[in-house]
């Protein structure tokens, strides 16, 4: 079994994966930060991810909805920042990585998803002082190892 202890390894390992694997993995990373948001918002995505016969069209449809969520949770210039809401914003961004067109090249969607998930944690930590990006990073390494094992 592979061991992953730093981001370099983490990224290199993800780079080896196919785009479909990327998407699956991305969803796992997203699931791990679901606690920072209203889980119901992503029910559709999670259902879709568990459906092996899901089509690109279905993903594309979902992408529009999630894109809207991302834009809607943007912090606007000059407004008082709600850090918890901003954590949700990055969860949405992480989710967006999961639904990107798998056929489009040059994508590292799992890695992006992981990074946004970490940012979400980071914002949550600013908001509540409890969440821990470091812990999230470690958790992501474990998710990846697990994923590779399941493969």
């Amino acid at each position, binding site marked *: 079994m592979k061991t992953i202890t730093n981001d370099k390894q983490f990224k290199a390992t993800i780079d080896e994966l196919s785009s479909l694997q990327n998407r699956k993995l991305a969803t796992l990373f997203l699931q791990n930060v679901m606690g920072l948001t209203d889980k119901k918002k992503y029910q559709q995505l999670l259902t879709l991810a568990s459906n092996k016969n899901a089509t690109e069209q279905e993903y594309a449809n979902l992408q529009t909805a999630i894109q809207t969520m991302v834009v809607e949770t*943007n912090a606007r*210039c*000059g*407004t*008082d*920042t709600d850090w918890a809401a901003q954590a949700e914003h990055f969860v949405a961004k992480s989710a967006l990585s999961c639904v990107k067109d798998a056929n489009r*090249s040059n994508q590292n969607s799992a890695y992006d998803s992981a990074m946004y998930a970490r940012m979400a944690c980071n914002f949550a*930590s*600013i908001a509540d002082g409890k969440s821990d990006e470091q812990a999230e990073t470690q958790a992501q390494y474990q998710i990846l190892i697990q994923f590779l094992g399941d493969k």
Partner: protein
Amino acid sequence: MSNATLEKGINSFVKMIDAPIASFFSSCVSCGMCADACLFYQETGDVKYTPIAKLEPLRRAWEQEYTLFGRLKKLLGLSKKITNEELKQHTELVYNSCTMCARCSMVCPVGNDIAYMIRKMREGMAAGGFAPAGLIGASNRAVEIGSPMGLTLHALSAQIKHAEKATGITINLDKSDVEYMVLLSSMELINFPEYLEAIAKIFKQAGKTWTISSTAFEATNSGIQIGSSDIARILVKRIVDSAEKLKVKTVISPECGHAFTAIRYEGPNLIGRKYNFEVKHILEVLDSFNEAGLLPTEGLEKEKLTFHDPCSLARKGGVIDEPRRLLKKVSDNFTEMTDHGARNWCCGGGGGASAIEEGEPLRLKAFKTKQKQIEETEATTLVTACANCRIVLEEGVEHYNMDMPIVGLTELLAEHLVDKPKQKLKKEAKQ
């Protein structure tokens, strides 16, 4: 605590009127061409958004106080007074529906700089208590917390820590005698933390020393937006003090339009003296790195790119060629919009307008021409260099159902830095 009053507002109008404004009002021939350059008139067709008409109270203040006939009329009780109600109505006109983008200033046949006058009129509006709540809140937070968006040092530290982890590069706070002091905008730290990572990578690559000040990391200036030089001065002073304490050579404005003009052009006039350091926009710095061969990039963007010039950067800042030179480093498929460079079409959210919640429907409406111009380029990715433009563009793109990622130029360049693409190449080889 002294409240704002109408008298204070009018007094401020009188105080602000200078020779340029007097010459501008003396020259207007009511041709209304400014309306055709204004995005808010363009999309609504409502004549109240005619730029010069927004200045009517300021014009009357000038006429009544500084001209012979105006004085006579006032003596005889014939002049129309400036009232509370009138100025309240002007809040929407001077703030919500004006981004001070200066497109009107650009087309006026007699050469009236209308944006300059709006900026001065806002002084009176702010002093008179007619500023919109959104900007008052932002100004409060900027002065009290240090960021219009309530971003504290604690939050900054968390972001720095995150960036350090993501890049493996140490980011120094308050390190003196370095070459550059990097300023950030709350917008970037909150919405686009990738910017900080990009900066870290690029500066490391270029071998330049830099730091962030813990007492003046915020570049944006709510005082400029709300139109209060007194507040703007406090905010600029923080930056100047920190920069001089840290003895840096250059202060870098982030990807934010008004922040650049605030520090670069208004700042010295606010504090009443020249700086001991230079102020540059991040794109100017990157361009200078590039010229010195310190910005080696590899690979070209696959997407077709177009660039949105932030008004404050291009028309009001003079940073026009730099982004193009930089973009062409990483793209051979770059198209210009119909209105670009100094003549660019505003996104609709500048000058503090995006902080005014009640102005959103109008903003989205006013986005139409921008949308059309973006679509005409047939570009698939929109690049810009202002976090506020970026958010407004994202909203607009979303509103008009366009599928188009919007990226910051600095981040785009960081992605193409040579030390990185090793993995990329490997990946490409695999495919």
